[in-house]
């Protein structure tokens, strides 16, 4: 059965994480769009760590004998989703980065060409 201490520790950890996220957004160091997945993670973890019956029913449902393991599993799953999301963000950024560098190379050449005295064609 779930120890009250575990409930307390888990809930405290989640509250700390959520607080950190809010603070990061407040200081403009984290954009809302990238914070949402973390807040969802924290929300679900908070609910599961406080509302023991929900955690019990959930671990019964998926066949996990020891409810705290289910809590870890859910946390792991969410972290996995967040990481995967970041990989897609990274891919998009590197694609945009490539396009940007290519545009710079092409524009720089055009500028140099303009400064150069005209050659006979």
């Amino acid at each position, binding site marked *: 059965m779930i120890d009250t201490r575990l409930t307390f520790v888990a809930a405290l950890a989640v509250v700390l994480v959520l607080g950190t996220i809010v603070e990061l957004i407040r200081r403009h160091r984290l954009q809302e769009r990238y914070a949402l997945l973390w807040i969802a993670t924290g929300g679900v973890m908070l609910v599961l760590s406080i509302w023991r019956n929900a955690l019990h029913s959930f671990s019964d449902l998926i066949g996990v004998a020891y409810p705290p393991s289910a809590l870890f599993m859910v946390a792991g799953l969410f972290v996995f989703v967040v990481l995967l999301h970041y990989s897609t963000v990274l891919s998009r950024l590197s694609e945009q980065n*490539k396009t940007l*560098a*290519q545009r*710079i*190379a*092409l524009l*720089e*050449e055009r500028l140099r*060409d303009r400064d150069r005295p005209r050659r006979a064609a």
Partner: protein
Amino acid sequence: MRKAAVVPAYNEAGSIVAVVAEIRAADPEFEVVVVDDGSTDATAELAGSAGATVLRLPYNLGIGAAVQTGLQYANENDFDLAVQIDGDGQHDARELEQLLAPIVSGEADIAVGTRFAGARFYRPSVARRLGIALFAGLVSLIVRQRVTDTTSGFRAMNRRGIRLFAADYPHDYPEVEATVLVFRHRLRMVEVPVAMRQRETGRSSITIFRSLYYMGKVSLALFVGLLRPRPAAG
């Protein structure tokens, strides 16, 4: 007819002047476009003083993006024809005329210089030959046309080819995927047997780990590529 010779170069100060001069000597009609892929040596300056147009990427993007930049230049400046030649001197500019023939005659949209269809000097290691044969076989199956060399970076193309690659070109180790891309867009491709030289300076970018990455990356790209819808003809 405007012709561009796109030369991707990364730290090729030792060979770039000779490569540019050789292309200009082989066919003076070519505008030589050297794409300096973030070199830390004097590649860009040397290429410029040798009479090439130089596109300087602000940092190293990899061969695929470098080639694409050159073709974007050709596309935006309305070139009719473009060839791609490595900056390390392994491609022989005297073979350009042969490579261009099927493009000029309108027989194909893309011509690839291969080392195997009638190769004379090229003897890669067993492992490399296996890898090349594996991908050549795989690509042949996918595109339903015999392809012998999917690693060659010695290519010529017409406007359709330029437009396709300017818009969409694989990131790194691009040749295999590019071949499939050509067929999916219903462009006609032919292979032209050419001789290639040993590298003059610098060293090949192939190592064990990179080979493994190469195999994994290209295989993944090929199979996932098959799951994409086929683009409309154009």
